[in-house]
């Protein structure tokens, strides 16, 4: 029995097709999941975007008409602009503040352990709680911001109903909510930097800024690129904060693309139109992430 088993196995492992395909067996579980949860929906979405559909099914094939409509829809174009504005407000801030916090808290003292937990704590809250907290801070009628404004003898500002200030207010909320992730990623990267590099730099008479720019930042540049890409992908998908804090207003000034998709699909039941908008968002994210990857990997010659 054992003999036969062994011969079978050796014959199997010797046959060329088996050897070629046996590796596939190991990646199959992930591959199946990836195909079912990501590739398939992507294809269905693409297909849907060329139709006029509602929740009861496809009504008509319309080709690229949905896309043509999108690019002449002022609300959609405004939403695209808003989304880029929001990404520009949040991604650099999250990266720089996250890095600064990690640099300050990258030591073994008890205080930094406590503060790391404090700064990460906001990340575990749900978007509902976060927006509730910040609406309480920002409402002009008795909110924390209003109290502070009065202390300085200023009239309280209605952040969320001001078309200029509403988006920065949502960005501020998002940074407060999301700062934990970049901070933790940067902390992990900083702890990977070999200690003897810093010791060599100390013996090389390097000043603190010199050490930061010549040793630390180059050593964690991969993590910087990673954080920027992750945050680009995350922040392009702004939805909950805008929906809960402003509902897209005032005057569409805080309506992001995902909220546009949501409303087109689930409020106006234009599934084909919403799917087309989703493809545009997908392309935007993919291009932005790839551009960032290209720029950050080009800076470092192999």
């Amino acid at each position: 029995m054992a003999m036969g088993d062994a011969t079978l196995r050796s014959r199997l492992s010797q046959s060329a097709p088996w050897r070629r395909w046996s590796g596939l067996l190991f990646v199959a579980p992930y591959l199946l999941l990836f195909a079912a949860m990501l590739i398939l929906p992507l294809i269905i979405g693409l297909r849907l975007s060329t139709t006029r559909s509602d929740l009861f099914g496809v009504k008509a094939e319309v080709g690229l008409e949905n896309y043509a409509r999108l690019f002449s829809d002022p609300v959609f174009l405004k939403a695209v602009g808003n989304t880029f504005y929001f990404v520009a407000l949040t991604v650099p801030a999250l990266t720089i503040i996250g890095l600064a916090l990690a640099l300050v808290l990258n030591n073994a003292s008890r205080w930094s352990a406590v503060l790391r937990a404090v700064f990460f704590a906001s990340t575990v809250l749900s978007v509902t709680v976060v927006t509730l907290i910040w609406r309480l801070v920002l409402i002009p009628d008795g909110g924390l911001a209003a109290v502070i404004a009065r202390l300085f003898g200023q009239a309280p500002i209605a952040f969320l109903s001001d078309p200029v200030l509403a988006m920065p207010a949502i960005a501020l909320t998002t940074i407060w909510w999301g700062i934990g992730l970049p901070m933790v990623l940067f902390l992990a990267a900083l702890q990977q930097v070999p200690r003897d590099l810093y010791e060599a730099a100390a013996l090389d008479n390097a000043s603190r800024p010199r050490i930061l720019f010549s040793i630390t930042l180059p050593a964690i540049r991969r993590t910087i690129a990673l954080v920027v890409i992750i945050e680009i992908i995350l922040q392009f998908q702004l939805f909950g904060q805008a929906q809960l804090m402003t509902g897209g207003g005032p005057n569409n000034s805080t309506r992001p693309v995902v909220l546009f998709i949501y409303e087109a699909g689930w409020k106006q039941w234009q599934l084909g139109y919403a799917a087309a908008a989703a493809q545009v968002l997908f392309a935007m994210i993919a291009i932005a992430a790839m551009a960032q990857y290209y720029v950050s990997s080009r800076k470092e010659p192999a």
Partner: protein
Amino acid sequence: MSGVLLAGVTKRFGDALIVDRLSLDIAAGEFVVFLGPSGCGKSTLLRMIAGLESVDEGEILIDGRRVDHLPPGARGVAMVFQHYALYPHMTIRKNLSFGLRNMGVPADEIDRRIDAATKSLEIEALLDRRPGQLSGGQRQRAAIARAIVKQPALFLFDEPLSNLDAALRGRTRIELAQLHQQLRTTMIFVTHDQVEAMTLADRIVVINDRRIEQIGTPMEIYRRPATQFVASFVGTPKINLLPVTVDRSGAAAQVRLGDGTVLETAVSSVSLPGEADMTLGLRPERIRIAPLERGDTRGEARVVERLGERTLVHVRLADGAMLVAEDRGDSDVQAGQAVGLAMEGACAHLFARDGTAYHGVSA
């Protein structure tokens, strides 16, 4: 030229005492090796001299100037790290110039120094590569070059050869010795490898368990070890240690081994403490294989190691004690064979229970 003076230097990590009131005077131009087992405090001591660890008590002076409160960069020392610690994202040229630029050395002077150092270490061709593109040996040279270009008052080496393979280690050892002859700069070298210590050092500082066991030239350390620890730490194969009873009736002490063999030592009886039971130390090269009937004692060869130029024979005595004896390279001793042993009692050391060593006049 600068010497180094350590006075009562102490280091604690929390409650753990790492270095205990250690004092040492290193002359200008000397090559000193700190030798000891891992965890003995030798690396910590080196890092205290470099300024990478604070000094809890005591003083460190380099060239008569007190430095223990100065930051590492202001002490005029250069260090070669165990894992090289080259900056991975900089080319070798940038690695070498980094410290010099921080110190405000003019650009043409930097180029001149890099030229000279890389030429003498034969790494000019590697200047535009990054550390990741170099082999271990090349990285080692780059790390040494980075130390040389700084023209420091004092070189510190923290086990720099431990990551090299055996052949490269031997070669780099010789190159370091040549480097010291060329530069004549004071060097402190930390290692747990007694061969490195013996071959490189003007003086060896044997450190064990936070304290200095012995300071001396390599031959002093080898021939007149101050303690049983030094005797057993230095020398390959290890010194034979056998329990003996001591007879002090003559001018020189006589010892009786476990198997009844009586051996005449050269250790003066009056110098010995009152202990009847002591430990005899006799290096393998002082125990020769002899014809059965002519030896001081006999035993059974258990393992025969042929090293080419000599043969090491692990012998079991009648009382079960094991010792290592030496024979010619072309020895015909076989494992299992009974052999005679000729012991040079005049070269024997005696160790008291506290580890203190007693030597004969000629040993």
